[in-house]
Each structure stands twice: as C-alpha cells, then as structure tokens.
C-alpha cells in the first residue's frame, strides 16, 4: 500500500533549493557578462520577438478599441440612430486614420533623413519598429525589430524626427535594445542653442532630463533649445534633445543646472531611426569595448558568428 503521508518539509529542504537556484542565477549572470550566453539570448529573443510584437499590437488594438468605445458612447448620446453602415464607416475611418498617422510619421522621418544627408539612417528598410519595453521599473530601454543582420551595432544613436531617443545598448541577430536618454545611466554632451553654453544632459530616476555642468556666470533662458554637442563622441552634433524648462543657478555653486523638457515623448515611441554611419567614440572597459564598426555595415558583410562584444547598458 502506498504511503501517502509526506515527510514534513524542513528548512534545509528549502535551503538546498535556494542555494542551487542562487548559484544558477549567478552562473547565468557571469555567462551573460562574459558574452558566452549571446547565441542563446539571440535565439530566445528571436523566438519571443514575434510574441512581443503581437502583444504590442493587441495592446494598441485594445487601447484603440477602448478609445473608440468612449467615442461611440459620446456619439450615441448625440446620435441615437447610428446604423450599421455608419459603424462600418467608422471602423474603416479608424483604420484609415491609423494608416494616415503612420504615413505622416514616416513622411516626417523621411524628411528628417533628407535634411541630414550626412547621417545614414537605417530601419525596416529605414525605420525600426518598437516591439517591446523594459520589464522592470529601474532601467529605461525599448526593444526594436532591427539587429545584427541589419547592420545595427552597439553604441549607434537612435533618433526620431523630433530628436534624440538614445543609443543601442545590446544587439542580437534580429532585435536590439535601446537605452533611452532618460535612463539614469544615460548621458549626452549638450549645447544650449542660443547661448552656446556646453553641459551634460543625463537621465534621472524621476524620468526627467537634467542638464548639468553648465558654466556659472553666463545666463540663459527658459525655453532655449538644447542640442547634442557631439563632444565625447557618443552622439552626432546638432540633434534636438529638448528645451530648458527650469534653471537652478546657485550663486556659490561651480555649475548651473537645468531641467530639460525632452523633445521626444519617450512613453509613446512607435517608430525610430538608427544612425548607422556614426562611430561612437568613447572609452569603455576592455571587455565591453566593441570591435571597430564599419562606417556603413551591410548585412552580407556580417557573419553571424562575428558577434561584437556586448556593451552592458
């Protein structure tokens, strides 16, 4: 007869499990940091990217549906006799509006590319689609549908027609992670457009952009445009970052600080551009430093096994 009585769980049972799982987690972390996990990560990302893309699509659809429902409710109050034909037209209109919106966005991105002929811009032929966002609250990243095979490399700047978004922090075969400019670990050398004062724009834990290290003495105005200065070699010169929102100038401080209102709405990114012919130039620890990237890398020129060293964001 089978003994159905279970041995009571002891603390050591759980202890062994905890130790094994902690060791497994530490091992995974070490493997990832040393770059040995890249093929596996690449495979997993390839498998999960379609699911993420679908989930993003469904989410957008559901949001749009709720929006439409709210609109329909209002319309019902005004027009009680709305028939099926009208509802169909409304639906068609909705999808057409969506197409038009995307069209407009693509047109402005094209315009951005045409007015900056020196920057080669690459996307899903020119544009990258945002397919996912950061899962934790501590890091600000997005996932885009372009990767190594499209010529994307770690460190490449990412923009929209409105301005600077961030830079590529991690690349797999078909997807890349973009560390957003408003992440506390992000920074860019910046220039105030009118007063020509230099400083550093960095992200913060509150999600706001802070411009620091502005020399004390010269004055500048709220509303002044902030551009990337190109110093330090992280980003090309002249990309819009935002506008000065508030100024913090203490008379006994060495530098002035300003809060910058971002030019880009980081919470509503759908399409972005990757600047592929810009070579980021900055000192990284040896094991993080990527091999020198080609100016205009082509997909055919990149063997899958030639994985650039990962830059941990």
């Amino acid at each position, binding site marked *: 007869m089978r003994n159905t009585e*279970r041995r009571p*769980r002891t603390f050591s*049972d*759980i202890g062994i*499990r*905890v130790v094994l*799982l*902690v060791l*497994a*987690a*530490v*091992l*995974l*972390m070490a*493997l*990832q*940091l040393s770059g040995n*996990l890249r093929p596996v*990560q690449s495979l*997993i*990302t390839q498998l*999960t990217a379609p*699911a*993420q893309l679908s*989930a*993003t699509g*469904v*989410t957008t659809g*559901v*949001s749009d549906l709720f929006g439409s429902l709210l609109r329909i409710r209002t319309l019902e109050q005004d027009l009680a006799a709305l028939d099926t034909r009208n509802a169909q037209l409304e639906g068609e209109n909705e999808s057409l509006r969506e197409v038009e919106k995307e069209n407009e966005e693509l047109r402005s991105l094209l315009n951005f590319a045409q007015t900056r002929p020196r920057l080669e811009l690459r996307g899903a032929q020119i544009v990258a689609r945002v397919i*996912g*966002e*950061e*899962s*934790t*609250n*501590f*890091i600000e*990243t997005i*996932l885009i549908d372009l990767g190594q095979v499209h010529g994307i490399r770690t460190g490449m700047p990412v923009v929209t027609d409105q301005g600077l978004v961030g830079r590529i*922090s*991690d690349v797999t075969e078909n997807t890349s*992670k973009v*560390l957003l400019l408003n992440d*506390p*670990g992000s920074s860019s050398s910046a220039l105030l457009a009118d007063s020509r004062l230099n400083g550093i724009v960095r992200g*913060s*834990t*509150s*999600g706001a952009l802070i411009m620091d290290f502005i020399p004390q003495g010269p004055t500048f105005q709220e509303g002044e445009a902030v551009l990337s200065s190109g110093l330090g070699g992280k980003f090309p010169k002249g990309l819009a970052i935002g506008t000065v929102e508030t100024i913090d100038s203490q008379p006994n401080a060495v530098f002035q600080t300003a809060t910058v209102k971002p030019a880009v709405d980081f*919470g509503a990114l759908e399409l972005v551009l990757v600047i592929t012919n810009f070579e980021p130039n900055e000192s990284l*620890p040896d094991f993080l430093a990527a091999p020198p990237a080609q100016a205009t890398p082509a997909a055919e020129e990149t063997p899958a096994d030639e994985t650039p060293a990962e*830059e*941990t*964001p």
Partner: protein
Amino acid sequence: MNRGLLYYFMIPLLLFLCLLQSTAVARLKIAGVKPDLVLLMVIIGTLLYGMRPGILWAFIAGIGLDIFSGGPLGASSLAMMAAAGVAGLGHRPLSRFNPLVPLAAAALGTIVYAVVYLLILGTLALAGWSTLNLPLFETLRDIVLPVTLYNTALMLVLLPFLNRMPESQDL
C-alpha cells in the same frame, strides 16, 4: 492534496505575465512607474503554496523578466527569490485571510525585490562589469516608493479573489 489549478498553471502564467510586463503593462504607468505584475503573481503563489515552490517560480519569473529587460540576466531572479522568501514567511504562521498579510507581503516583497536588484546593479557597477548604477536614495524615492504603493493597491484589488483560492496544506 489540495493544490488548486493555479499551482499547475503557475509557470506558463508567469511567462505570459513576463511578456505582458514588457508590452501592455507600460500603458498602466502612473507617476512614471508601472506595476510589477510578475512579482505580485510570485507573491500570491508563495502566499498560497509556500516558500518551496515560490522560490522556484521566482527564479523562473526572474529569468523571464530579465530576457525582456536591459539589466543583467539573473538579477531579477535573485531579487525575486528574496521577495518570495519574505512572502513565504506569511504562508503558514500568519493567516493569509487576514488582509494585512497579503498587503504587507506585497509591500515588503516589492521593497526587498527593489533593494536586492539595486544592490546587484551597484555591485556589478563597482566591479566595472556594468555601467548601470542607480543612485540609491533617489531611486527609492522616485521609483521604489511609488511602485510599492502601486503594487500594494493592486494587491488590495486582488484580495477578494485571493481569499477564494484554496490554500495548500502539503507544501
């Protein structure tokens, strides 16, 4: 044996929530932060079924989260296992039908998760293996506190459902 359906569907459910966390949950942002649905699910699972399965779920859910995250792989697992450890304290000695227990588990679990995650990031940054190093005080004020409130409020909403779930006696 009285495990309930949730026990057997926990892993697929957690992986699905990981996917949601990196897509749909971004639309639930309030004051710049989004709720940690995966963490809440691990806490609920641990409250219902104990620390033993809870630790394993925390490990798997953490890996799932890290795949969609820009952070180091395994960091969320370690942080979530610590949170499951805290939630597991409320499994047997305290009745989870006392509303304070799940709420305290959600709040403490979120704080423990955040602190462990930040410590891991800080340690890796100190060792020069990562450039991700968040200022502790600002992060606690701007991110951890609002997320703790958000997660606890969500747990409050989930309490009626949680109280209907059968509690495991054999784990």
